[in-house]
């Protein structure tokens, strides 16, 4: 089960299925997804809104809303975290796995200073009681995420700081317990482009420095290209393609991935019409059997009405498409 570098797996999703129970029906957000993340590896979950990528991130972080039902397994270093309770659970949540959210302003409680919130997390996870020590750790962390005036940030309320600063601060909070896996749920989507680049650089740097594994969630392939070692493409709750970043971006196998790449506007090309994929996502309350991309796929065939399993076409590069059935085996 060791990957190409012989690294051990840190997180494994096995047949993960997640449903939301709502008044208007059951939403099938994630359907039978299996994935492995190894140590010091960053994996990007890429997909449109509604593909289920955020749900997976929340599930791993144990941060799903109460109307969600999880079946399948989420194995963190071999232990199924979906079954954890009590003490074991509190050793996992926020400590071994940490998460940063899309909207930094909504992540912090508006009535408390950043310092108060950070102190609570540091005190809880690191067991540090001394106020000065806690403050020292907090300032250290804020410096590490590139905030120039940590003392001021600690004393500030969320509404007094900009989006970029808040996102850095939330990264600092997420890193304070020294987690092994960091989940980043679209951390740059709400920031402007320059900030985006800065935050991505920061995350890459921290990943190297701290030896973190990352589960990076985004809808933007460009972002995925910058940050990730491996890319997993999700559509309507199903995993369609997964492989190293080079493999997926330079040699995409699944028709959906190919279309996604075509849609990325290129800076150097001549002015062209913005491309898009015609059609819409299937209704998550009533997903059709078979490949979910079938209605919008150029290369669809009759066999597509039965969902093909993931096949390893090349080493480390898997795809779930009838085109490649029989080419490999897993």
């Amino acid at each position, binding site marked *: 089960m060791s990957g190409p570098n012989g690294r051990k797996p840190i997180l494994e999703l096995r047949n993960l299925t997640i449903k939301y129970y709502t008044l208007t029906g059951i939403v099938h957000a994630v359907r039978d997804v299996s994935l492995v993340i190894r140590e010091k590896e960053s994996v990007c979950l890429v997909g449109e809104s509604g593909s289920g990528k955020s749900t997976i991130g929340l599930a791993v*972080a*144990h*941060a799903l*809303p109460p109307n969600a039902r999880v079946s399948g397994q989420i194995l963190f270093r071999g232990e199924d975290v979906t079954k954890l309770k009590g003490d074991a659970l*509190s050793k996992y*949540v*926020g*400590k071994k796995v*940490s*998460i940063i*959210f899309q*909207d930094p302003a*909504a*992540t*912090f*409680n*508006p*009535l*408390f200073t950043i310092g108060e*919130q950070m102190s*609570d*997390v540091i005190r*809880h*996870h690191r067991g540090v009681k001394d106020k000065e020590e806690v403050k020292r750790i907090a300032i250290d962390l804020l410096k590490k995420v590139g905030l120039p005036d940590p003392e001021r940030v600690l004393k500030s*309320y969320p*509404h007094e700081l900009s989006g970029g600063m808040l996102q850095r601060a*939330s990264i600092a*909070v*997420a890193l304070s*317990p020294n987690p092994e896996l960091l989940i980043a749920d679209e951390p740059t989507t709400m920031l402007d482009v320059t900030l985006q680049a800065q935050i991505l650089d920061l995350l890459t740097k921290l990943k190297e420095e701290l030896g973190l594994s990352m589960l990076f969630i985004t809808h933007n392939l460009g972002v995925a290209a910058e940050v990730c070692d491996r890319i997993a493409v999700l559509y309507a709750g199903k995993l369609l393609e997964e492989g190293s970043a080079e493999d997926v971006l330079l040699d995409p196998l699944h028709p959906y991935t190919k279309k996604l790449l075509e849609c990325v506007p290129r800076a150097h090309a001549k002015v062209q019409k913005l491309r898009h994929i015609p059609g819409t996502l299937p209704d998550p309350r009533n997903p059709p059997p078979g490949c979910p991309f079938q209605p919008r796929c150029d290369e669809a065939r009759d066999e597509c009405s039965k969902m093909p399993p993931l096949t390893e076409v090349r080493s480390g590069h898997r795809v779930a498409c009838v085109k490649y059935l029989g080419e490999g085996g897993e």
Partner: protein
Amino acid sequence: MPVSKEYIVKRVTLLILVVFGVLIITFVITRLIPAHPELLWAGPHATMEQIERARKELHLNDPIHVQLYYYLLNFVRGDWGVSWRTRSPVLHDVLSALPTTLELVIVAFIIAVIIGMPLGVYAALRRDRLADHIIRILTVLGASVPVFWLALIVQLVFGSWLHVLPAAKRVDEMLVLRTGFHPITGFYLLDSLIEGNIPVFLDVLRHMILPAIVLSLYPLSLCARMTRALMVEVLNEQYIRAARAWGLPGKLVTFKYALKNAIAPVIASLGLSFGYTIIGAFMVELIFVWPGIGFYAAMSLLSFDYPAIVGVIVIVAIFYSVINMVVDIIHAIIDPRVRL
């Protein structure tokens, strides 16, 4: 400093405007009543001369705007007239009855918050389960019961039938005389503690239990309901889910974080409920013979003692505005985003 000068100026101006509005309305009301204040002023054995002099003194012969002028002027100068019933200055009557009512209302609100808030939090945490449904029905019930009816029933059952608690008045006069109790502030609970007079303290407490509980029912129900609704809303917010995702223990998240987020609007609604509770206090005082403003007002209404009625209305209006301002300020203290 969460409160700006502009805010204070604005609120005080509003307060003055409201008081003037009240005064004008009460002026119109008293002029519409076909009563003859000069007769009551002069007394039952007055001669025609004395009655005529009374008319002059009360400016009753002057044109209406002059009357209004003197009316407003008097109020500002602190001359709120003399009660036709008690024959003492209305302002004095009202100010001495005020602490009596305040004591009752404050205790009622304390009960409301101490019981109401935990109930609300409990219901929010057990949302949609049996405990939640029971609490919700009880709070709706509490808001549907007429205060005066409840007061009568409670007084009947606990006072007359079961004889467990005193059914009327504030304190046992004999006990006051025997222990030499001299109130300073007018807040008997406080005064008795200051003097170290435990028997009177306990006695006042015993007299206070029934009216305070009856009075607290409405704000209690409101408090529980609002706390529950707000906690449910707050617990769903991203910053609470983030706090949980960061691994912070549930109790900390609920009681330190979520509760603070929920409290500010709850306090605001409690301030609003103050208006209804004051009227409730009127009825409770009337029924339990609790000698506060409500009792004074009710007696004045019954004897058509207009200066007294007006005095009560003005003091309540002032108080209501002050309470609203205090609630706003508390809100600003809790929520740093609010700048007044």
